[in-house]
């Protein structure tokens, strides 16, 4: 029986994804994943889907009535948010571009067919699959409440899924381009966001303080504009169409679907063009004439390896985006979390603890970014100890820069004392050394290739995610707790206490270094196979 090319593509994609996951996760990893999915499904996905089903069931009877006038913008706004969040997160974090276009382009396939397969494959992403389940439940709820609308509801479901998938594809490609070409834009964005967070901090009402009338007026105007924007959203038009159909105007209901459906298809065409161009841009770059480059020189192999690691991190998309983390941290602390009490105790340690989380994906997979080059590194006359020391130096430079940026952003917002800052730095050192010590083992235990030129499909294996979460939690409780406790109970001992902890962490790091190096030497073959 002949199989359509799109189906053949999807089958090949499914088979290779399954084989890759099984190989990477190993037996215990598969069980851990099954357990996690079962827990999440039972306690998160199913209750959420049930909630959405009930919401649809409750809203359904209101469609086509006077109450429907106010229900449609709300539904449209919520669905717009779902589409936007799903598309943005999916695009930036890994949902987009599931298929290997580079390989499949050699087949006699029209790009639109490839795009169709790509969109279907995108449904396999956890986030999109979850959103699809939620949208399906909402639609089902609406359909049971208003059975006459079921055919139209199916169209609405398809157009929303299309919008999510296309948006994530477009944003994935755009993020790639931004990371590739616009370093300046990233820095500018950081400055803007930081300034915005400062202003937000000034404007946001504090507990117990009434909102002043001028601010109330500004907020009212903003709300009016926001409502106008919501009414113009394709998702709101889709809901308006349902409302019209419920009132008996089926033709109007169908016409109103043309906007979301047409927009989805238009964006799909744009995405196909963009992906095609992306492939063409993969051709080798023409050589440019210019000044002679500066060559490195270093005294010890570890120093050279450190510079190499730092350069690798700084030239990777993940590494570049890592410098947004200090800004995100400051926004979180200054914005949504500003409402929590006792900020003077937890803000500084919390910020450093949160920043340290980003280092997990590099520290717990230290050879991931070396790619084929890992084979080259292992062919050099270097022992495990030198390799790990080199990696450590690279991470010191990279994470040290991140920490300095965080300090620079926090000083004008919190005005911490020098003692507090130094104590916080000691805490960051504790975090870093613990990460590095555990990471030296996990990097050999469960290595995985990290694509330097993409922000996508670089997630850690599930087992490693669990280990990283455990280590982060332990560090936060131990070091963050010590910081807060010392500041609260014995402020005079804050700096000496944290310095002592940093010293102990350094000793512990040194104590396990030899064992980590020996483990690395035993696992070189596994690393080469996984990364090289």
């Amino acid at each position, binding site marked *: 029986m002949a199989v359509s090319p799109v189906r053949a593509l999807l089958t090949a994609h499914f088979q290779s994804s399954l084989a890759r996951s099984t190989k990477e996760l190993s037996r215990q990893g598969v069980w851990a994943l099954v357990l996690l999915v079962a827990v999440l499904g039972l306690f998160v996905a199913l209750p959420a889907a049930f909630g959405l089903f009930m919401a649809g069931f409750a809203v359904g009877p209101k469609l086509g009535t006077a109450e429907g006038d106010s229900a449609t913008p709300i539904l449209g706004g919520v669905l717009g948010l779902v589409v936007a969040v799903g598309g943005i997160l999916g695009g930036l974090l890994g949902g987009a571009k599931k298929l290997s276009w580079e390989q499949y382009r050699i087949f006699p396939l029209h790009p639109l067919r490839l795009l169709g397969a790509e969109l279907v494959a995108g449904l396999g992403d956890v986030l999109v699959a979850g959103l699809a389940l939620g949208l399906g439940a909402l639609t089902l709820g609406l359909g049971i409440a208003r059975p006459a609308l079921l055919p139209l509801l199916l169209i609405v479901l398809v157009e929303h899924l299309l919008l999510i998938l296309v948006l994530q594809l477009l944003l994935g490609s755009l993020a790639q381009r931004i990371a590739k070409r616009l370093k300046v834009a990233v820095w500018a964005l950081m400055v803007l966001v930081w300034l915005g967070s400062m202003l937000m901090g000034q404007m946001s009402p504090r507990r117990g303080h009434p909102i002043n009338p001028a601010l109330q007026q500004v907020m009212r105007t903003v709300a009016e504009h926001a409502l106008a924007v919501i009414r113009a959203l394709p998702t709101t038009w889709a809901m308006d169409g349902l409302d019209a159909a419920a009132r008996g105007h089926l033709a109007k209901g169908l016409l109103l679907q043309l906007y979301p459906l047409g927009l989805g298809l238009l964006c799909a065409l744009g995405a196909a063009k963009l992906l095609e161009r992306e492939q063409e841009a993969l051709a080798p770059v023409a050589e440019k004439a210019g000044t002679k480059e500066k*060559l490195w*020189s270093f005294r010890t192999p570890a120093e050279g390896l450190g510079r*190499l690691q730092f350069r690798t991190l700084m030239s990777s998309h993940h590494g570049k985006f890592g410098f947004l983390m200090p800004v995100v941290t400051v926004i979180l602390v200054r914005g949504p979390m500003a409402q929590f009490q006792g900020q003077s105790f937890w803000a500084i340690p919390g910020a450093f603890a949160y920043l340290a989380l980003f280092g997990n994906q590099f520290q717990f997979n230290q050879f991931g970014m*070396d790619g084929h080059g890992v084979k080259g590194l292992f062919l050099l006359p270097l022992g495990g100890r030198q390799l790990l020391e080199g990696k450590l130096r690279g991470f010191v430079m990279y994470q040290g820069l991140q920490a300095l940026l965080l300090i620079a952003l926090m000083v004008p917002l919190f005005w911490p004392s020098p003692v507090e800052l130094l104590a916080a730095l000691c805490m960051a050192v504790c975090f870093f050394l613990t990460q590095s010590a555990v990471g030296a083992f996990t990097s050999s235990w469960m290595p995985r290739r990290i694509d330097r030129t993409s922000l996508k499909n670089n997630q850690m294996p599930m087992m490693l995610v669990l280990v990283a979460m455990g280590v982060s939690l332990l560090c936060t409780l131990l070091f963050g707790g010590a910081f807060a406790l010392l500041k609260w109970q014995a402020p005079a001992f804050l700096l000496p206490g944290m310095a002592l902890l940093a010293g102990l962490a350094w000793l512990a790091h040194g104590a396990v270094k030899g064992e980590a190096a020996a483990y690395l030497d035993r696992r070189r073959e596994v690393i080469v196979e996984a990364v090289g």
Partner: protein
Amino acid sequence: MTYEPALELTALTKRFGDKTAVDDLSLSVPRGSFLGLLGRNGAGKSTTLKMATGLLRPTSGTVRVLGLDMAQDPIAIKRQIGTMPEDMALLDMLTGPQYLRFVGRMYGLEDGVIDGRAAELFEKLDLAPGPKTLIADYSFGMKKKIALCAAILHGPKLLFLDEPFEGIDAVTNRTIKDILLSLQSRGTTLVLTSHILDVVEKLCPLIAIIDEGRLKSYGTLEELQMGGESLESRFVDLVGGTRTGELSWL
């Protein structure tokens, strides 16, 4: 003085799960010789080379390089050998000169020495990348050339080359051959894998044929060609390949 071969593989075996990639392979390569390791795709040539260079651990058997045991002294061995893997294993976020500086320093060479040797190699191999062109943006042939430069930069006593002539043009092919022959004439031992019989026949006085992980034949070219058989016929006889190339639907 005791005779110490440059490379000595004894009962070397490598298994990946149920699959045996190299099976009880023993081989001794004298110093200063040029060995061509011949075999079909998947015969176990690259796996053998990876074990000989310390990238893979043998399941059983021993590897001795220049009188040292790979399991005991991997770092001392790596200081004296050069390797060009099939996929080149380059640090492609560096430019060519930066990469050679990095590799040279790892072997303890001075900056001046590295730069002098690199300039000579670049000239001989007609390698002229743009000043800031990353290796990632090199053509395939240029990558092969820079990988060869890195493998010989420190003057190794034993050089391993995995499919060095794959995917390069005729002129570069000729230059690389000349460089390899000049290395041999200065006493360097060379081990080269290839499935191109022509290359091995013209370059390597010593030939080993591997099939399904086992050593099928080992000796000089003359010994293999005894009875007037061509190397190709002898090779096909040993590995049991098919002789007809007709397809039923064409």
